[in-house]
């Protein structure tokens, strides 16, 4: 193939695709405004953190010792204690959702403390496990702080044997702020959205309007069509990526601990994968409605549910884990989270990068085949 005509045709096609993209307002809406909305929604509106959760306090032992033991809860920014007289009342409140947990200090607390095996009961609402897990940690922490303070004061805490105190730290996200892990995940979501969703219309629309038929009977080569369709959306994707990174750094103070260049390179690679995925779907369905539905099901939903963006993949059943490994987004989520919060882990970057490169080559070939310049 002669180089010059290839380039001339490619430029003509890119110009055509860009014009078509810019003239369709819904493209800009989905391509630029929706990502902006998602950034704000995920950054400000969505959080797994627990603040000001009402906790019922049932002090059956009202001694000073008992009160001191739970005093940490009162000072906690995460919880608001509600004093309740009896256990029955507290249970009713938990059932009706007025409180999220019950902390019960039994009658014999002070006595048993003397013996070194004092107990405090914590009852959690399992309907919302995320909330319950967080509260458990907070209550533990609050009570633990008191214990530790006592130890610091030099007093022997009871005569207990094996009175182990756990001192915990969360690495990479020291404050346990969920924005920190939601925002890097958002990069994945937006790259998927822009890529697969917008491009899923492109080939299908040309089939529906009958324009491909005319285009095929010209010197155009299938590869030129694929490349030209990707190019303008690659630019949109890069603008979105820049928006994400700036928002992460400036608005949400998410640290960028890995190399910015590597983040850009990995994102670009993933963007190409998802653009090709959208084009491929478009090419096989040849129908805009079917293509957009399929893009949602095959790329966007898995990126949200199966990529490890929200749910930790190590806790899911083996089958789901295998499926999730097939989702390209999974490999990008791993890289991007590490890059943002932990630093550049070269082994991981190279491994996942190679997987994404593999995907993009496979998808390029498949998409190419859907544009074989044949109607049957």
């Amino acid at each position, binding site marked *: 193939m002669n180089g010059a005509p290839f380039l001339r045709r490619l*430029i003509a096609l890119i110009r055509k695709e860009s014009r078509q993209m810019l003239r369709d307002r819904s493209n800009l809406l989905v391509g630029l405004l929706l990502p902006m909305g998602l950034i704000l929604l995920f950054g400000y509106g969505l959080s797994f953190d627990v603040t000001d959760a009402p906790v019922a306090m049932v002090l059956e032992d009202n001694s000073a010792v008992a009160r001191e033991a739970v005093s940490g809860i009162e000072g906690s920014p995460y919880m608001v204690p509600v004093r309740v007289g009896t256990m029955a009342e507290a249970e009713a409140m938990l059932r009706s959702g007025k409180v999220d947990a019950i902390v019960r200090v039994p009658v014999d607390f002070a006595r048993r403390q003397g013996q070194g095996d004092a107990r405090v009961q914590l009852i959690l609402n399992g309907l919302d496990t995320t909330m319950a897990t967080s509260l458990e940690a907070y209550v533990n922490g609050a009570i633990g702080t008191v214990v530790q303070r006592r130890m610091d004061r030099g007093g022997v805490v009871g005569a207990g044997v094996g009175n182990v105190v756990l001192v915990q730290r969360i690495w990479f996200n020291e404050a346990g702020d969920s924005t920190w892990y939601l925002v890097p995940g958002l990069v994945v979501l937006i790259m998927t959205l822009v890529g697969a969703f917008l491009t899923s219309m492109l080939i299908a629309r040309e089939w529906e309007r009958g324009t491909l038929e005319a*285009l095929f*009977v*010209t010197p155009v080569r299938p590869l030129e069509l694929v490349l030209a369709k990707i190019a303008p959306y690659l630019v949109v994707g890069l603008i979105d990526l820049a928006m994400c990174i700036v928002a992460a750094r400036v608005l949400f103070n998410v640290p960028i601990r890995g190399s910015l260049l590597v983040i850009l390179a990995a994102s670009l690679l993933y963007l190409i994968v998802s653009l090709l995925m959208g084009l491929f779907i478009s090419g096989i369905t040849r129908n805009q409605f079917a293509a957009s539905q399929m893009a949602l099901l095959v790329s966007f939903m898995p990126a949200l549910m199966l990529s490890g963006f929200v749910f930790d993949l190590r806790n899911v059943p083996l089958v789901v884990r295998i499926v999730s490994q097939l989702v390209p987004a999974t490999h990008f989520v791993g890289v991007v989270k590490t890059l943002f919060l932990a630093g550049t882990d070269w082994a991981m970057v190279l491994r996942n990068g190679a997987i994404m490169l593999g995907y993009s080559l496979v998808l390029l070939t498949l998409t190419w085949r859907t544009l074989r310049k044949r109607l049957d």
Partner: protein
Amino acid sequence: MIDAPPSVVIEGLRKTFSGPDGKPFDAVAGISLSIRPGTLTAFVGPDGAGKTTLMRMMAGLLRPDGGKLSVLGIDLLVDPQSVQNRISYMPQRFGLYEDLSVQENLDLYADLHGVPPAVRAERFSRLLAMTDLASFTQRPAGKLSGGMKQKLGLACTLVRVPDLLLLDEPSVGVDPLSRRDLWRIIEQLIEAEGLSVIASTAYMDEAQRCDQVFVLNRGALLAEGTPAALTARADGLTYVVTPDADVPARDLQARLIDAPGLVVDAVPSGGQVRFIRQPACDDARLKELLHGCDAQPREAELEDAFMLLLHEHEGPAREASVPPPLAAGRADGPIPGDDGAPVILVRDLVRRFGDFTAVANTSFDVRRGEIFGLLGPNGAGKTTTFRMLCGLLPASSGELRVAGVNLRTARAAARARIGYVAQKFSLYSNLTVRENLDFFGGAYGLRGKRRQDRVREIIRQFDLDPSAPSGNLPLGYKQRLAMAAGLLHEPEILFLDEPTSGIDPLARRAFWRTITALSQAGVTIVVTTHFMEEAEYCDRVAIQDAGRLLALGTPREVRARSGTAAGHMNEAFIAIVEQARAAEGHARVAA
């Protein structure tokens, strides 16, 4: 002409698709032909003849299932790209990018074909002048009229002189004026540039202009030759007969077409009936059929030869599919309920969409039992007028009474008395014929035994198979089912929107036969069509262009008004629209 190698050589070419019922059928069933370069060649045939499939195979878009195919001496099975580099192809839907401007569409195709910038300016200005698009270069292609889109589509295929130009039904769905303009451009280019053109068409007047004609039907090549040679096949078989003064031409035509043993084909034309007799027809019986009217021989036309070939090929099986005349023919008695008052009354009807006037100041009446035709190019306001008549679209101003009911105040009451057959048959393709009819019967308010009786009756009248899935029916039958559904509640008026578009000529004859029978039974019929010759079946027609009513009257009056009394309805239509446009031009200049 020099003895150049043929531009297309086809041997035993075959292409099989799977039909809607899952069975394979041959869209192209073993065709062999060769086409000389430097000529204008036509593939003619009804819908489903295999024209488009053949075009697409020649363009390298479909892979043949058997046979040999070479274009410009290149084997398409081996190297389709080399062919695609040298030919141009205009698909039925023109292949334009509607969101790109006229200029941008031209630029795109010029870039793809590698037209050097030096020759581009000259070429573009020539194409734009020829297509009258020079003042619209900045307009998005989607905002052009149908005729302009078609011309732009053609211009895009001609950004450079192709070695072969393929046009797939270039004039389908386009008004007669644009059709004529398009062929003028093609002829100019053949003369100036020695272009080789292959066009597929369903219009005989277009085939008439070609050097070589191939007649196709159901994937088979029926005949080939020059238009004159083909026409000669019908020599001596063609007649024209004038009915008695009080008999509408369509009634005589119906009688003739009901006698397939004697008459191959008959169409009403200018108050007379043109017909083709069967070669082996008995003179005495034919005379009896004509009720003593005198049949004059007339010169055969390509259309006659085409109909003759089609009938031969379809054979007697096809004749059986002509629907039986509807039971209650009341042609002789007075039309029931006729008190002389118009059944549809339209006064100063206006419809605006924003600042665009789709229908301007239109007034007409439709009398009971009439067949009334609305004719006009695309965008003339036919469909808008039609929708207002059916109560689907409110009028901006004016008076509108249908079946004695004011449509502006009592739309629901009027709707119960009209039947509507939409252009795209609004039937559920995954329901059977009976289920569809049951559903529409219910929707029209028929209940219990009455509905059952009506459904049974209509299935019998229209000769339908109640258990057939609607989606698998051939187009002609789908159309018949749609009509049956519209007639379930025994409406006084039946509205049909473009009922014959996309249907082959034999099915169209059958369709009009049914309409004639319905009219004889006293149903008032309002029909839109872009086939001008179908105006001949109507008692009266209204011609619309750009929202205005240009002519109203019997087909004969309309022809007389146009000054083309003897001619074809097509020419009358073109003359009337041109006169009106010229008058408007003068008015604009004067202002």
